[in-house]
């Protein structure tokens, strides 16, 4: 199936509610169960808490809340994707992790401005992964704070 020369990436597919999303596995360190989360006072509403992962302190973010899709409903299938942002481990709390899917970068379509209620700037693109559409998240954009986003938009008008 693989065409020689076409660039592919392996994405971890997960669900936020009924929608399927993907993150490049190269950006993921591992996927862990929710475990014990310690709430953090005065943190932004999307920070669910911090978690001790083998001695490393991971800030856990409710990805649904971050993408303004409500909140992740607690359940046994909840998982945390461990990624790294600015050298700091960040946990992304998701409803359910389904699988890894191979994505042909050439077949990646640009995301519409608004996808399932999420702003298009959060996506690298959308494509078929297996038997459904997978929206490939741009982690940098997702983890960028609003202030940073605004700042970068001011710096580079028109590219946002």
């Amino acid at each position: 199936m693989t065409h020689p020369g076409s660039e592919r990436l392996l994405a971890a597919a997960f669900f936020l509610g009924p929608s399927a999303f993907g993150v490049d596995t190269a950006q993921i360190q591992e996927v862990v169960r929710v475990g014990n989360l310690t709430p953090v006072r005065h943190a932004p509403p999307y920070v669910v808490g911090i978690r001790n992962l083998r001695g490393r302190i991971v800030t856990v973010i409710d990805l649904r809340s971050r993408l303004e899709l409500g909140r992740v409903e607690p359940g046994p299938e909840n998982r945390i994707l461990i990624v790294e942002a600015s050298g700091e481990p960040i946990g992304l709390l998701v409803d359910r992790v389904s699988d890894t899917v191979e994505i042909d970068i050439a077949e990646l379509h640009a995301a519409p401005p608004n996808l399932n209620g999420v702003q298009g700037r959060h996506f690298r693109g959308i494509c078929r992964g297996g038997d459904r559409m997978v929206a490939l998240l741009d982690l940098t954009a997702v983890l960028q704070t609003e202030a940073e986003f605004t700042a970068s938009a001011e710096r580079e008008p028109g590219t946002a």
Partner: protein
Amino acid sequence: MDALFARVRIARRPLLIVAALMFPLAGLLHFILGGFSDDLQFARLESQGIRYERPLVRLLQLLPEHQRAVLGKARGDAAAAAMVERSRSDLDATFATLGEVDQAIGTTLHFTELELQQQRQEAVRFPRLRQSWEDLKSQGTTVSPGAIADRHAGLIADVRSAIAYARDHSNLILDPDLDSFYLMDATLAGLPSLQDRVARITDFAREAAAASTLEPSNQVRFAVEAARLREMDLDRTVAAVQSSFDEDPAFNGESRTLRPSLADPFQQLRTAATGFLSLLDRQSASASPVAAPDEFVRLGEALRTASFALWNVSAVELERLLEARIEGIAARRTRALVIVAAFLLLAGFVFWGVIRSILQPIRQLTAVAHALAHGDLTADIPFTKRPDEMGHLARGLESLARTLLEVVGDLTRGLQTLTSSSVELTAVASRTATGANLVADKATSVAAAAEEASANASSVASGMEEAANNLSSVAAATEEMSSTVGEIASNSERARVISERATTQTAAIVAAMEQLGRAAQEIGKVTETINHISSQTNLLALNATIEAARAGAAGKGFAVVANEIKELARQTARATEDIKGRINGVQTSASGALADIGKIAGVTREVGEIVTSIATAIEQQTTVTREVAGHVAAASATMKDVSDRLAQTVAVSHSIAHDISGVSAGAGEFRQAGENVRASASGLGGLADQIKAVIGRFHASGSSPATRKSQTPPRAAAPGVFIPWKEEYSVGVVTMDAHHQKLLSLINRLHDALQKGENTTRTQAILKELIAYTEYHFEAEETLMAKIDFSGLAAQKKVHGDFLGVVASARDRWLAGDGSVPGELLKTLQGWLVQHIVGMDKHYTPCFLRHAAGARDTKCPLKQAALKGNGSAHAPGHCGKAADHGPDRRSRSLS
């Protein structure tokens, strides 16, 4: 330009700079040395001029004497005739000397015919001078005295011209040093002029003495000549000599001989001059005729002699001054050369130091970079403390090594996670197998319980039949009630006993059903555990996939295995769901059966009560016969109902038994899956070992430096492995390929250890490990062949055994001290292993493929994945029938 310089080694490039600098330097040196050389040339020409002048001045001294002698001879003076002879021989000798000097340096001083012609000075050429002298000599006293004097005067004038010419062309008048210049002036201008003038005054005095009176004009001429002699000649000469004395210390050091040797002749000249001048003064002051011309001649001759003496001494001193100057120039030149050489040495030293300070770090850092390239991350990096660019470079290398160390450390930690994951996976697989066994056990006990329940139900059914029959007979007996009351009583008693028994049996059924329910619940718990395990496996597999993706090309094989594990986890989850559904069915059926049995119990109790009431009613039988008949009919209908329900119970029990067999099958599948997971985990372990080997190339793991060194593969081993693994060695079974690769790597290690001449303990340790691993591998291979019913198993077993015997005996001989063993053994190992893998092991590939293909519809993806594809169609070995009837085998394992 850059490409041109890039071809030159860095060590040579500064030489280019040196070469470029050498040209201007050499030019500069050339000009400086040329300047010295010119000065030397200049001074030497001056000395040559003096050398040329010496005979000429001697001629000046001798010619007037000769003239006087010839004139005397002409007058008939006998003494004069002898003097002529002596004077001639002196002059001949002097001309001969002049001829030699002219021969030697005449050309240098431009006394050539051409140049003299251009300057209209042909008369001063040596041949012409000698010719004039020869003419003068041959004439002798044959001509008049006037002609003699003219001839002499002409020759003297030519000699003077020659002196002037030599002076002009020998740089003497350009003399740069004041001491030698003034001495030259005294020698070449002052003294000749004085000599000339004294000669003329003497001649004039002699002429004047011939007259009887002194004419006033002659008296005036004496006064004029005295003044000229004093002021133009004597004062000039005295001043020049004095100046040369004064200036001497300022040029080339004070001459030690100048003042001492000149002092006497100088003083004599002044004394003689004073005497001559006082005579002249006296003569000019008186009008009386010249009284004593001889006095003039005597004093004049004395002055001339003194002046020639001074001239000779001066010429010698002048030459000495010039010599001193030449020596000074030569010394300055030598000094300049020494200084230049010293600076060149210093520059060379600086050059050498700079080159060394650049080259040495480059060489050492290159060596470090090579070491890094070969994986030695612990090499000490020098020069990191240096503040220059080499320090930057060294620090860059150091941070590169540190980053590599961190990466290798990360990889090692990732690998540890992987290894622990595979261990965990193995544990999970074991637990899965245990869980499956538990399920099978529980299912068996449920089946037994269902069996018992079925038997009990049957027995109840037969009891019911009997009860129904009895009721029939009760019904019949009611017709003859009165006569058969006793019989009815006994019959009703029996009915009561039977119904009691039915109640007891029903309770037993209830107990069995309750046990069934508990068993089903326990299965439910087990499936929950399995569900949990499968979700954990899934998560592990996902993480493994991610880790594999992060590892890039090195993780490709691992990604396949991770995928398979994920697929397995999914299969497990599906199977668990299946079991859960079936268990739910069992539980529903069991609770349905329980409800039914409860109803049966109620009915049975009811029957008992009815029978009791029959018994009590028998007393009033007579009056209630019709009522009894009705009751019996009701009982009969109830009995039918009971009978129906019992039949239903039996059916339910059968369905339970069927479900339980399904559970059993699921458990068997489970066990299979668990085993496959364990195989995958061991494959995972093998992969981890391979990655570990790759990382092992870097000396960076947490081990101590000593062991680290010993683990480092020899540098030469990487490109020239003794037996490299080839794709053609693959037998198509991942685990067996891993085993074969491990065996090859052990043989390669043994080979390397022997090549490097490592100590015997270490090589023997490798050999020991090789034998142990070979035994383990043969066992695993034989187990696999047995599992796929490979017909060549017996032959393989024999070959394996023989080979182990050969290797063990070789080891024993080696331990006994046979030094030729290792080489032989390596050859044997190489030949045997490759031949065995390609010749024998590959024969089970098709069998394994077919076995796996047969098992495909049992949904065993691991086996499919374990195949590496192109199994050859022609198989010398044969599979047993199980391979041809895969599904049969599966059903057998399920039953």
